């Protein structure tokens, strides 16, 4: 193939293991250097580099098929990665397939965590950076803008992004089902375990009002509190001060429960009108299961959260075909619009590069 084409070349989590991806991923400095290298490739008329922890992808508009090989060579050289090894994990798509792939990436359909929306921002960021450098043109501008529109459409027309699929985010979503706005909630983190920390961070990112950490090891509690912008509480006080909190996250390694039904009953007497939400992520469990029977008290353990996350994931998975069909149709229509311009339009595939071309309407 020696005719003008749109291509994507790179590696993603589907084939490349983390050990490979960490060698391929680009930091800001490396990305800037690579883009400078790519700008010097003859026949590469437009390009955009997307680099996240799960993928490195270079989208380009080329005058001939040989250009993609030159892009690969430049990338491998910059990353000091053997070209032969790269080809084992390589993703190469052209024309409509490349366009369709970008639409799926932007919609979160190609993500490791299906339907996640962070990738949308990452693709947008990569495109904005390329635009700023003046290395996109009429073709990529149109493709990326249509990709963003299609991703929004996929979100609104299918359930691909609905429901949380990580334990920490499911816990936060449940808290929102109980309290609504989390700004006025007080969260108590029991223990300084990894999963508890992740959950506390998820609460923090959703704007939880205040966060208090308690652990048998006070120095660890203080360290984590400082990291989370929280305060530390001596471990022995957590039951007597239970009424002060709305959400309690248990993640200690204690052999027995650390919050009793009696303490919870006493706390609820002090705050009967305000619900109390327990998230028990510990094994053995931190919270006495009997608290679940109390009025206005809600208890979810690790199994409950994992089940909800997996149900949400199954629901998203069930939407894949619908989402793929929707995006496929959009990609096909987009390609029908682009292909003639690519092959004949003056100033595009005919060999004249227009740096920083404005988006087509």
């Amino acid at each position, binding site marked *: 193939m020696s005719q003008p084409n749109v291509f994507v070349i790179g590696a993603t989590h589907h084939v490349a293991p983390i050990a490979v991806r960490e060698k391929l991923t680009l930091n800001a400095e490396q990305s800037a250097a690579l883009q400078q290298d790519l700008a010097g490739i003859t026949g590469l008329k437009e390009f955009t580099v997307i680099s996240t922890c799960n993928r490195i992808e270079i989208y380009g508009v080329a005058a001939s098929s040989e250009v993609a090989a030159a892009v690969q060579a430049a990338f491998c050289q910059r990353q000091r990665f053997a070209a032969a090894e790269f080809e084992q994990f390589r993703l190469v798509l052209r024309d409509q397939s490349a366009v369709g792939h970008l639409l799926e990436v932007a919609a979160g359909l190609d993500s490791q965590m299906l339907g996640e929306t962070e990738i949308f921002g990452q693709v947008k960021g990569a495109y904005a950076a390329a635009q700023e450098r003046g290395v996109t043109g009429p073709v990529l501008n149109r493709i990326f803008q249509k990709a963003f529109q299609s991703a929004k459409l996929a979100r609104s027309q299918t*359930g691909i992004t609905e429901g949380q699929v990580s334990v920490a985010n499911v816990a936060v979503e*449940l808290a929102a*089902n109980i309290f*609504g706005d989390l700004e006025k909630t007080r969260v108590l983190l029991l223990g300084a375990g990894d999963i508890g920390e992740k959950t506390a961070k998820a609460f923090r990112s959703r704007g939880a009002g205040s966060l208090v950490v308690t652990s048998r090891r006070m120095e660890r509690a203080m360290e984590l509190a400082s990291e989370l912008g929280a305060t530390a509480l001596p471990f022995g006080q957590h039951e007597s001060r239970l009424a002060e909190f709305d959400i309690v996250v248990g993640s200690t390694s204690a052999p027995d429960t650390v919050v009793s039904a009696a303490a919870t009953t006493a706390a609820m007497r002090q705050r009967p009108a305000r*619900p109390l939400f327990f998230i028990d992520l510990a094994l053995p469990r931190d919270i006495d299961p009997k608290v679940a029977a109390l*009025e206005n008290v*809600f208890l979810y353990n690790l199994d*409950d959260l994992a089940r909800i996350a997996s149900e949400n994931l199954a629901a998203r998975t069930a939407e894949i075909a619908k989402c793929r069909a929707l995006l496929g149709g959009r990609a096909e229509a987009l390609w029908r619009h682009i292909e003639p311009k690519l092959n004949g339009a003056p100033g595009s595939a005919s060999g004249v590069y227009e740096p920083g071309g404005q988006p087509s309407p």
Partner: protein
Amino acid sequence: MLDFLSARGWLWSAAFFYLAVFTAGTVGLLRHGRRASNLTYALMVIGYALQLAGLSLRGKEVGGCPLGNQFEIFQFTAWSATTLYLMVGVTFRSSMLGYFTGCLAAVLSLISLAVPAWDATRSSKLFGGNPWIEFHAALALFSYGVFALLALTSVMFLFRNYSLKVKRVGGWFSFLPSILELEVIGLRLLVAAVAILTASLAVGSVWWLRDTATADVGKILVTVAVWAAALLVLGLRLASLLLARRFAWACLALFGAALLSLGPVDSSRHQPTPKVATTVPVP
């Protein structure tokens, strides 16, 4: 044949728009839980406008507030609930309250339209030309509309509480507002209902005290019982003695009591008293 430009014609049209809210909401929920808040709100606004036109026309025909029979009372109650939804519903995060209000308004409207006997006769000169009594009756029925909305939020609370307790939070449960929001709105609605009913009773009592001979003791007792029950529930809630599920069930019971009280109150109007023309039709 139905004259679509008559009061009943307008009210039939309104009922179909409320039914459309229910249908669109149900279809949306069944199809992957897609919400269409704007559509719900638009249909509710159209239904409301048509019902308002129908009730206004009826009011013009009878020369007063259209509260002369069971049909009009049901229509007015549905209209009151919709008024309140349009006023406060937008503050809810989802269209579920609109969906439920649409269902309630459709049920009340369609039942009242489907029973011709309810609209076959009506007490004429119902309020004896006394605008204060008319105001008292309208206020009382409006408070019943607030009770209806309170009942809806209570049902939503019970669903939300159940879903969280049994740990089934997906599907259409996910569109319900949070427990805390439902509690807050429930309390506010109860305060509003009690305040409006109290004002209605205050207005009515002035008339009863002036003209004790025409006051119907049975009706007064039923009305005061509903008011006292609402006041008791509010007092217990404010003292934190009636909370969460129990409060929701109590609110549902209050709405049930309010609906049941319409029977005795309405029948008291038809008693052959010499001054039937000035009998108050509602609590």
